[in-house]
């Protein structure tokens, strides 16, 4: 089974030596993210997030199905992550790796279980018809920071997505095509973002947004998911190394700052795209929501 190539003894020692002098190999500050670029396709609900050399593309799609019998009023929302050799030859297609399981668990908790998306709003006819929304996450390039990039990409895609408008009259469901009625945005309750920190020197030193090599040399990591309002949705520590409780608190605090930073970048990118689409400035008047 292929595995990611380990850095040599020399590289590892050099990286740690540099960290002792508070220098990162790419010249970033310890608490700085790599260059973040968020772009959108022509379709709604496709977000392409580039974080340095890491690149993740998420596509949201919707279909109508019957709800689960025990949750008659809730729509269905699934997130699929499949790591393919596209991102790194170490990934095998059609076979779930530990990294993939880890990734999907964190996304599950931070985005789905934190009720970022109101699944009740996806209900069309109670007990019979609901929207099944799926987020397909395609990792195109992998150089660390996978969790942060995937979470950001999925959330941006959700915020960008427009679901077809539908109405129910006397039990009959009508789904309108985009020509008949403008599709509507999803009901998102809050915007949680993941921030990963990696530890070095037995938890003494930490850094934000590690590259793959930094990740391979680190002793452990902590993932914090929170929304820009300051509500923490998830804290998870992995990798085995010991970390002092106070350092952990400090990390959460740093992560909060980063969450706001990423949130702003996301708002900016979405606003820019909305402007690009709204050529004649008419979208406000034409929007179906206004009628209600």
């Amino acid at each position, binding site marked *: 089974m292929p595995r990611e190539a380990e850095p*040599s003894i*020399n590289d590892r020692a050099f*990286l740690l030596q540099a960290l002792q002098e508070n*220098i990162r190999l790419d010249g970033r500050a310890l608490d700085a993210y790599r260059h973040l670029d968020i772009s959108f396709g022509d379709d709604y609900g496709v977000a392409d997030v580039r974080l340095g050399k890491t690149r993740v593309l998420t596509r949201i799609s919707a279909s109508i199905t019957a709800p689960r019998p025990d949750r008659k009023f809730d729509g269905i929302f699934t997130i699929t992550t499949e790591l393919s050799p596209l991102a790194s030859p170490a990934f095998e297609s059609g076979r779930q790796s530990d990294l993939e399981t880890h990734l999907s668990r964190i996304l599950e908790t931070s985005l789905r279980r934190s009720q970022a998306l109101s699944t009740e709003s996806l209900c069309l006819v109670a007990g019979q018809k609901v929207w099944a929304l799926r987020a397909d996450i395609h990792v195109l390039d992998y150089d660390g920071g996978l969790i942060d990039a995937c979470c950001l990409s999925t959330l941006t895609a959700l915020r960008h997505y427009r679901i077809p408008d539908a109405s129910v009259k006397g039990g009959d469901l009508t789904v309108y095509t985009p020509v008949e009625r403008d599709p509507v945005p999803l009901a998102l309750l809050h915007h949680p973002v993941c921030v990963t920190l990696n530890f070095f020197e037995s938890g003494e030193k930490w850094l934000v947004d590690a590259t793959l090599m930094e990740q391979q040399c680190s002793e452990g990591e902590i993932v914090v998911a929170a929304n820009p309002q300051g509500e923490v949705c998830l804290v998870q520590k992995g990798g085995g190394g010991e970390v002092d409780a106070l350092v952990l608190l400090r990390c959460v605090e740093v992560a909060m700052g980063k969450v706001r930073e990423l949130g702003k970048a996301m708002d900016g990118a979405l606003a820019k795209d909305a402007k690009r689409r709204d050529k004649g400035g008419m979208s406000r008047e034409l929007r179906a929501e206004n009628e209600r």
Partner: protein
Amino acid sequence: MAAQTLVLPGEAIPSDILPIPSNPSLALKLGPGLRHVPPSTITSVLAGSLCIDQKKNSIWVENNSGRYIPQPNDLVLAIVHHSSTDWYHCAITPHTTLAQLPQLAFEGATKKTRPQLNSGSLIYARVLSASKHTDPELACCNPSTGKSEGMGELKGGMVFDVSLGMARRLLLARQREEGGLVVLEEIAEKVAFEVAVGRNGKVWVKSGGVKETLLVGRALQETDREGLGVEEQGRLVKKLLRGI
């Protein structure tokens, strides 16, 4: 200077542009990217620019992408993966079959004095033999003289990735004249450092401090990425030197 034209895979090279040998008995040398289809057709198998050297009576396709394929006599930077009784098994590029390095292929190595390399050690070695049917074999000394010639385990420092074309240029005997590279010379005027260039697109750099090592590595990577010319390299080095 060699003449250049773009070729795509599968194109037949017209016989009138082939170099004319000074002596009719001299065989035409086909470099990388070309193949001979009997009886007398030469076709390209890669995309790149076709280079012709009239003096050496040789012709080849130059390009700068893809994965490194070991060729005999190339100098490479490899990482020891594991060792067995008589061999070190080394990775030249990730996810390919490991190359074999005899434990006695070091300068002055005997059964008792051979170097002990752990997995993850970095070595500078020459490809002794490589063919498509066998695993490549490495050596850390010149087999005819037994001298190390700078090869062996590299201690300290850091490895930077560059493109295969850049590695090729760095290994030219006359970097400035043939490869248009002055970046290392320019830095060497101000900072002392050591480098070892592997044909597999890796450059090992070691200098007095972390900052200096990173400066050399970054200068090389940026020159490579942006395709900087001689003057631009000078400006880049000045800019980077100001940083420390």
